[in-house]
């Protein structure tokens, strides 16, 4: 590869310097020859030839410089266009980045939703079962007092102490003592129903752990209206024999709600 060519400006200035020097020498030589009248054999011709040559070179270089100026203008226009394209590409890059971010967020959220759906699907509970339990809970008067409840009624929205002792757990702990707790009237009659009652209570307990909101400790009958005392107090004893709210009507409703035969509380243990 040829050595790097000199820039045009450098060549022009160099040629101009040569022209200046040669023209000065020529003029000085002519002035000396006129005053001293000494012959200068061919030297002045030589200088003159050099001067003409340099002048010609200078003109060619100036022509080249003018053309280079035009090319330079075109290059400036191209550089502006390159800058514009660069800014367009940067703009497009920003937009693509933004789109990528939006898509990544959407994909992540969709994946999270799918995970939640799968999780819910795995732990799904049949709506029928939930309604059945809700019916049982409401049937036991756990969320609202019975319409005929009056202050003094021993019924409560939860199994009372006596009822618990009469249940299977109570009987298990009192097995060795053999029926010391015989203070409940109609014990033998209650015994047939108590296992069912215990099952109802255990299901109530398990459900209360899941649905705490249903079983809020806001028993309306704690501040019951006195004017409600219509029924005679001995009715409370009558109701004490049966499971709270577990009357025949509610039992029928429960049976009707459930299509599964094993859902009867009196049969389960």
């Amino acid at each position, binding site marked *: 590869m040829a050595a*790097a*060519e*000199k*820039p*045009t*400006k450098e060549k*022009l*200035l160099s040629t*101009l310097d040569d*022209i*200046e020097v040669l*023209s000065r020498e*020529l*003029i000085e030589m*002519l*002035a000396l020859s*006129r005053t001293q009248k000494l012959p200068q054999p061919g030297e002045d011709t030589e200088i003159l030839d050099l*001067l*003409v040559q340099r*002048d010609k070179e*200078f*003109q060619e270089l*100036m*022509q*080249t*410089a*003018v*053309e*280079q*100026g035009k*090319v*330079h*203008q*075109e*290059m400036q226009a*191209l*550089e502006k*266009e*390159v800058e514009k*394209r*660069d800014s*367009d*590409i940067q703009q*497009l890059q920003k*937009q*693509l980045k*933004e*789109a990528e971010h*939006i898509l990544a967020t959407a994909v992540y959220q969709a994946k999270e939703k799918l995970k939640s759906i799968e999780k819910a699907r795995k732990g799904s509970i049949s709506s029928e079962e939930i309604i059945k339990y809700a019916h049982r809970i409401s049937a036991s008067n756990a969320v609202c007092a019975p319409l005929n409840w009056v202050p003094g009624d021993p019924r409560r929205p939860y199994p009372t102490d006596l009822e618990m002792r009469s249940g299977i757990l109570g009987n298990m702990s009192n097995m060795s003592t053999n029926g010391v707790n015989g203070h409940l009237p109609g014990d033998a009659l209650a015994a047939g129903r108590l296992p069912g009652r215990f099952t109802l209570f255990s299901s109530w307990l398990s459900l209360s752990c899941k649905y705490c909101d249903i079983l809020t400790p806001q028993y309306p009958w704690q501040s019951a209206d006195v004017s409600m005392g219509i029924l005679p107090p001995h009715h409370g004893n009558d109701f004490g024999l049966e499971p709270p709210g577990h009357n025949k009507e509610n039992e029928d409703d429960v049976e009707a709600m459930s299509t599964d035969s094993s859902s009867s509380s009196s049969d389960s243990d």
Partner: protein
Amino acid sequence: MASTVSVVEEVEDYSFLPIIHDIIKCMDKDSPDVHQELNKLKTKIQEAREQISAMPGIDMSPALQESKLRTLREQVRTKNQLLQKYKSLCMFDIPKPS
């Protein structure tokens, strides 16, 4: 024709031979205008230097400049192609948040 005339004029403007010829003529005639002509030559050389310094695009050789010009043209062409490709690549619109 006008452009040819202007080019010829430009070429003549850059020549120093007419002034040198005038100087020699004055010297031969022993004219008092010799000094004036010498000053003209000095002024013209100085103006030429200033003009050369101010001319754009002559900081490099013609070959190098041509090479840079080709590179720039190629850059513009490539970037145009790239932009065209990416603009035509987008098959969906990003919905604006309502």
